[in-house]
């Protein structure tokens, strides 16, 4: 067993458009980053599986002897009309997006208490605004806000727990969203930006820098909070 003098951050969904930038940003802030992914890599884990989550946390502790930060970023998104929603798809979305953060938070809780660490959960604008055909996704991301607030109370004063709720972020996912409404990627990007008070779409770095702030000592008085990152499209 080795130990790390650097702070250790576990980031799930680390190979996604936002996840990869979170990993880079935390590394440049001096973290030892465990980049957890669903498919390949050294830190493979399906967050929908409690066993995988327990195993991931155990492997991190065996390797580094500490966990300072958990970023629950892994997620899945599917659109289904509610009356035709396949229950298997419904629960898969809930399992990945909501149960996954529960399993990992539970497994990491005692290590985070020891390190006086923090958790950041990746929610979404849709958690607060809702979205047609996105009932499972919205439920999962809204449920994550409930989990965030409850764990903020329960793990205080040792562990801070916050959430980030981005609106549209300029990642490869945007191509699918554009196709969904029959627009080219450039036209869709322009239309989304025009509808946003800041006249721009969020980029992954905007999300990553918000997370970097939340896990830094400068955010020591923030817990149970939801950071809305949407350019002013929603002001709850």
């Amino acid at each position: 067993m080795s130990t790390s003098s650097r702070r250790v951050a576990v980031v799930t969904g680390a190979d996604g458009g936002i996840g990869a930038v979170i990993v880079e940003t935390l590394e440049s802030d001096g973290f030892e980053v465990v980049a957890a992914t669903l498919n390949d890599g050294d830190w493979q884990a399906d967050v929908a599986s409690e066993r995988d989550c327990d195993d991931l946390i155990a492997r991190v502790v065996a390797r580094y002897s500490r966990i300072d930060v958990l970023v629950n970023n892994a997620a899945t998104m599917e659109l289904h009309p509610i009356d035709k929603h396949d229950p298997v798809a419904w629960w898969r979305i809930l399992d990945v997006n909501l149960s996954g953060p529960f399993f990992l938070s539970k497994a990491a809780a005692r290590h985070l208490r020891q390190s006086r660490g923090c958790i950041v959960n990746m929610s979404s604008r849709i958690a607060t605004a809702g979205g047609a055909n996105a009932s499972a996704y919205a439920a999962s991301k809204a449920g994550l806000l409930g989990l965030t607030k409850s764990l903020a109370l329960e793990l205080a004063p040792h562990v801070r727990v916050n959430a980030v709720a981005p609106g549209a972020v300029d990642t490869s996912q945007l191509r699918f969203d554009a196709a969904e409404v029959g627009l080219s990627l450039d036209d869709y990007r322009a239309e989304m930006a025009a509808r946003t008070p800041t006249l721009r779409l969020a980029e992954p770095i905007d999300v990553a820098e918000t997370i970097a702030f939340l896990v830094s000592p400068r955010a020591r008085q923030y817990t149970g909070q939801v950071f809305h990152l949407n350019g002013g499209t929603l002001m709850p």
Partner: protein
Amino acid sequence: MAAAAPLVEQRSTGASGRRPVALVTGGAGAIGGATCRGLADLGYAVVVNHLDTAGDAALLASTIDGAAIEADVADLTAVEDMFIEIERTFGPVSVVVCGAGFSEVSPIDSLTASQWDRMLAVHLGGAFNVIRTAIPSMSLVSDAAIVTIASELALSGSAERAHYVSAKAALIGLTKSVAHELAPLGITANCVAPGPIDTPLLSPHHRTAEFFEALPLRRLGTPTEVADAVMYLVKARWTTGQVLSPNGGAVIQ
């Protein structure tokens, strides 16, 4: 395949055929009961859904000229069977109130996956199953309304209830999404998020002097006050995707 129990009784002689139909899941409890009575007063034929409380449900149904039906809302097949039975007996459903649920306290460290799954399956999955199954019926009527019952704790968070609060907060996300989605059909979807209500299920902590001191309105809510919020949302035809939280000022946001 889990079959829904047959409707206990339809007492009305003919008039019920013309009454709009309301289904209240978890209808035999204190808040559910007040909601059933409120809907009956508004003229609905009320179906009291319950699980393992046949006596209470039948008694309530008999006093409001409604019917009782047992089904575990977490079981999609049981919910589908329940709707077949309701539609056969009463006709299409106009109002569903998703109130089935239970409370449980557990620290995160000892909260098991099965506790977590059951909590989500009943509160969130139950509403998903009921709403999903109700849509064909609700699209046939005018003034259809869905009301989900969440909790003030979904807004504020609560220690040692990560599973309960996550499920209730998720229920709000579900409600808002179906509000968007079903608006073109004229179906509204709203949520009531009650604070501490004077029911047998309330924990002793909520009855202490210290708790009342901290609560702005200095008293517990009554089941009727929750039912009043439900009635308002059933009638409010230009209101959808909203969360109404009668909570004595416990959460002001």
